[in-house]
């Protein structure tokens, strides 16, 4: 493993439905929980990196109002607007550069704030694409169409992904119901070929991660970021390899190299893959090198990615069990942190995990993070 790392010393997240609190109150609540989890006071924090989307929040320069409740007043504050995963990257870089010792990384999103698809639609190219009904759901459906055209057996595997993830969510106590594959296949089509249960439902939420340089915070619960990688793909869907995901291959390769991982199959114990759709989990499993695209359906159907499988994927249900817009992917890092600390499924205590996060139409931006337990905090 790499001898150059950054610690996660605190983490908190909340996924909410029907909370009447303001966004600022939710951010304050989660930040406070993360600081308590780290066992530190706000005065020990050097910097805040936030990730907010003006459009999802319904206001320009959203970090103006969120910086205070996120603990950034009178500190170094940077807002990263491209993806919540990129805020983690920024915090990681700030500590690697030696400029900061303790950094809060916070992101959020409220599906209840307004019409999220309308905001997504306005990301479309104004000259050529704006007249099309393009939004995240349509983009992920187009990706699934290409996927299911090129690869056999995806329909059954996609249903199995949903069945597996919701079962994991139920076991983890999340407020969802387990479903069988038949129920998935019988749920209404929301964007051909995707069915309702094959798409991540949306909620409100906030996540906060406390990063620290090794030795900066005294704790026996640290989790190490051993490596990170992130990469982008082209904008236009027609120009992209929506199945091969070369940019995720690039991002995960960078993360593995930095982490000193030579074999993802042998060296990584569990995976948090961004299942914004059931197809996305299958495609990500292949792009990170766990299998190849055509074999991915078989991997799932054989149970290899089940909680008790060889390569468990999405141990607490992933995004298919509900996720919040924009900030949601970063909550997966908080979940993986809990696993490695021994606060999740028992077999993940002290293990090595990979978290993959995406943003944009059909995952235009991809990020991969390798986490494990450091020998010394």
């Amino acid at each position, binding site marked *: 493993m790499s001898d150059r790392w950054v610690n996660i010393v605190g983490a908190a997240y909340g996924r909410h439905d029907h909370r009447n609190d303001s966004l600022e109150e939710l951010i304050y609540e989660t930040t406070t929980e993360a600081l308590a989890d780290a066992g530190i006071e706000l005065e020990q924090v050097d910097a805040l990196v936030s990730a907010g989307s003006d*459009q999802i929040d319904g*206001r320009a320069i959203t970090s103006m*109002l969120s910086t*205070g409740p996120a603990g950034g007043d*009178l500190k170094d504050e940077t807002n990263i607007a491209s993806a919540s995963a990129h805020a983690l990257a920024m915090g990681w870089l*700030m500590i690697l*550069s*030696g400029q900061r010792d303790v950094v809060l990384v916070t992101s959020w999103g409220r599906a209840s704030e307004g019409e999220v698809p309308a905001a997504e639609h306005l990301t479309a190219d*104004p000259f050529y694409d704006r007249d099309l009904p393009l939004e995240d759901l349509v983009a992920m459906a187009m990706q699934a169409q290409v996927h299911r055209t090129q690869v056999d057996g995806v329909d059954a595997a996609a249903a199995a992904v949903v069945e597996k993830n919701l079962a994991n969510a139920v076991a983890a106590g999340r407020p969802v119901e387990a479903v069988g594959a038949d129920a998935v296949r019988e749920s209404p089509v929301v964007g051909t070929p995707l069915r309702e249960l094959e798409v991540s439902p949306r909620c409100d939420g906030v996540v906060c991660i406390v990063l620290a340089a090794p030795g900066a915070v005294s704790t026996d619960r640290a989790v190490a970021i051993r490596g990170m990688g992130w990469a982008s793909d082209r*904008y236009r869907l027609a120009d992209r390899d929506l199945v091969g995901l070369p940019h995720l291959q690039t991002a995960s390769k960078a993360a593995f190299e930095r982490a000193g991982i030579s074999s993802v199959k042998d060296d990584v114990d569990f995976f948090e893959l961004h299942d914004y759709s059931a197809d996305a989990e299958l495609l990500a499993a292949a792009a990170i090198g766990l299998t190849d695209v055509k074999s991915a359906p078989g991997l799932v159907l054989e149970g290899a990615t089940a909680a008790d499988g060889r390569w468990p994927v999405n141990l607490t249900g992933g995004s298919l069990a509900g996720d919040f817009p924009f900030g949601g992917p970063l909550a997966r890092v908080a979940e993986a942190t809990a696993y490695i600390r021994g606060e999740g499924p028992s077999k993940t205590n002290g293990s090595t995990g990979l978290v993959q996060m995406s943003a944009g139409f059909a995952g235009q931006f991809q990020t991969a993070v390798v986490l494990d337990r450091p020998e010394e905090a």
Partner: protein
Amino acid sequence: MNSRPVAAVGVGQTRFTNTAEAATYPELLRQATQTALADAGLGMDDIDAVVFALAPESLMGINHAERWCVEAIGAAGKPVLRVQTGGATGMSAVHAGYHHVAGGAAERVLVVGADRVRESGDAQQIFNKIWDPIYERSMAHTTISLIAMSASRYMWLYNSTEEDMARVSVKAHKNGANNPNAHIRREVTIDEVLESRYLAWPLKLLDTCPQSAGGCATVLSSKEALEPSQDPAWISGIGMSNDTYWVGDRIGPKLIYDYGDGGALEAAARQAYEQAGISDPAKEVDAVETYASFTPVELHNAEALGLCALGTAGPLFQEGFFDMDGQIPLNPSGGVICTNPISVTAMVRFVEGVLQIRGTAEARQVKGAETVVTTGSGGSHQFFPVSVLTREPRSAN
């Protein structure tokens, strides 16, 4: 962990104009990118990562335009992230690029952005939407009224006058006339400034920045990746601090920083100076490019940056202390009063600092500039990043 030294080795700006009708937004990005890469003697294949500077995209009306413009900035297939700290975005993006290189995650980083501030009509209608929707929006609060309150506070604290502000405008326009890339390139008289119409007392039209369009980019490099042909300007210190969001928290018995002063900027500068080994900025700084979108901001910025004592900037402007031939030339480029493409306004400050360090600022060159301070400002006069550029890398780096 120790930071690796980081240098700016390439800069590029478009000519800033009112609406940039001859180029689309992606074309502005492309022009700035290609100019900076050519200046560095590099191609896009030499770049390891890209930082995209885009402030409120509401100004040009395309949400998350970093996704649309990935190809325009040459970032497809590469690591890219977008920084958004309002008007401070351009400098915060430089800092993000700095962290990539200093942290060892990249050898060379492209930092690039552009803006078309007038694309969605009146920028102040957009800026009304930065305020709290419950308490402030209905007050017709804008960035003009925001700074008008700070200006009136400064006037009350230090017996400053509208003439003090007007002298800043005269100096800015005189410098801007020497800058071929500036949006506003004409000199003004003190009477013209004083007779221009009020926007929000005490701010008048000629105390106020324009709404500009254009692009800007810089290439940052590690020491190990320097090419013999490059002329580096070293980032010897960075600092960033921010004030509270609520303006009401800046006035009254519980204030942390007085709204008439630039307390958060002072805190950020202190960090940057410490890293750069600067103990007496009034003696050690050769030139300053500070983000002052309204003339009174330049007064309190000069004080916050330690160039002079609190309340003394006005008289010093009158003496010519901050003129091109003064002791510390302030905003040789003409500053934000002459050019304000919001997403990159702060990066333009940085790029001007690089040109001054290199000695290639032509008619606006400060002789012998070896230490230049550059700043940004964003949000509700809230986010303040500072970068110190030097001719030689400082040991504190």
